[in-house]
């Protein structure tokens, strides 16, 4: 088999250091909004239990959720790639979309309302708990200093 030629402990290969440097890079990119992408939020759906214990990623997740919480019910450009009967097909598609929109508008608008309320509630809870935890941490630190346990 092809065995790698490099020796153990080769210069620059310390996984602890490498992971730390990758995380620093990720944190920079997070700040720049590089991961503000609904696809990232979706990718984390099976990882919620783990990222909720990490303050920074919970914030990222909520930001992504904000970007993707609302279903787009606006009109969009309807086109047809086939040349034959293109005009007729576009008209037909527009008719189908108008009909669908008419019958599903109430459903989508209610869903958007629910999504919006839930997102606001989650953000409110997140913010309020973060503030409470921060206050409690401050109090514990003061008490520890007072008792000389720190």
């Amino acid at each position: 088999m092809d065995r790698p030629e490099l020796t153990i402990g080769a210069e620059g290969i310390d996984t602890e250091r490498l992971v730390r440097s990758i995380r620093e890079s990720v944190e920079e990119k997070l700040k720049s909004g590089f991961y503000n992408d609904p696809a990232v939020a979706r990718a984390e759906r099976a990882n919620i239990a783990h990222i909720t214990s990490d303050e920074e990623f919970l914030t990222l997740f909520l930001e992504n959720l904000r970007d993707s919480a609302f279903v787009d019910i606006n009109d969009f450009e309807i086109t047809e790639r086939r040349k034959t009967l293109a005009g007729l097909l576009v008209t037909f598609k527009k008719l189908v979309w108008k009909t669908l929109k008419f019958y599903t508008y109430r459903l989508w608008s209610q869903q958007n309302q629910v999504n919006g309320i839930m997102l606001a509630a989650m953000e409110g809870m997140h913010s309020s708990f973060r503030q409470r935890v921060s206050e409690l941490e401050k109090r514990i630190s003061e008490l520890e200093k007072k008792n000389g346990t720190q």
Partner: protein
Amino acid sequence: MSRMRLAFIAPRLPSGDAVGGAETLIKHHAHLAGELGHDVTLLTTCATDHYSWTNVIEPGRRTVQGLEVEMFPVDEKRDLETFLTIQESIMKGRQVSPEEEQAWLDNGINSSAMIEHITSGAGGYDLVMAGPYLFGITVAALRAVPEKAVLIPCLHDEPFATLEVFRNLLRNVRGIMFNTSPERDFASSLTRGKLPANEVVGFSVPEAAADVEHFRKTRPVRTPYVIYSGRREPMKGTPLLLDYLRTFRKRNEIDISLVLTGKGEVQLEDGDSEWVYDAGFLSEEDKLSAMAGSLAFCHPSTFESLGIVLLESWMAGTPCLVHAGSAVLTDQCRKSNGGLWFRCYPDFEEELLTLISSPVLQATLAKNGYDFVRKEYSREAAKKRLGGILDRLALG
């Protein structure tokens, strides 16, 4: 070292595709103990399927791969509704009473015939070693002979582990064989440091020369690919891996594939079949070849007491990417310098891009892992560790 009569208990006999990590590990320990000169019998059930637990093999004694094996039927009378109701409560983190814990174990996997065999003294065993921890059969067997009881817990941080019945078991057996140091640390945290005689025995991986090209040439796989081997189910993190790779491909426009080996259903979405290749259950040779040909082995599970597949992957010359939520897998990568660990998608993306762009890094991680496995997980090293704890237990 005095020769002892040892019984190892595994819920199923690992053979063919009826393989669980814990059962494989227990069979491995039984073989090693035999090589150390002890008189070993593997006690197991007649079931092969870990969902139905139907008795499909004739009970009785036989020799399997050089090991004396005695098989007992699983108790068929169990209240599955009670079992599942309590199990759901435990999994959701609800408080359950000691009576409910016991009812859950009683209605789980048990074998009265095996317990009768152990308590009757028919086998004349000096020590009875059983695992993994969360089976009724394990708890009942070890409770039946506490002065001879040795637990092979295969423990990891999950709601079941925090039950009082298991904390008591960890405290009250005669000895414990752990798979990794993080597993021992976790057990120690559950018992507030009150553990009996114990040792991190680990595992051994045979030397193997993996053929890098064989799998790639004989299967319709596109390179580069990452690989996952083992049971495919939510608890093992396979849906997470699919989500991550789907997103990675879309965001980075890199045509990377995923090869899956092992058993279990995979929920694919439209378009996934273009880049996901399900190789199913493979022979050891083919599995190693598939690992050897991959960019990295990815283990997205957070519920592991030892990543045997990580060891195999390093033996095949492939680095690993693991979920940082598993203290055990992260520890293996950290100690070996043979893999990286991710907390979330952004970490995963950055690490995979780093591996793709740096063949030198990929090769170095692989080499580090390979050296680590040869040193720490050789048969001799594992035998020494197992022999050590058995000697200590023999001395009482």
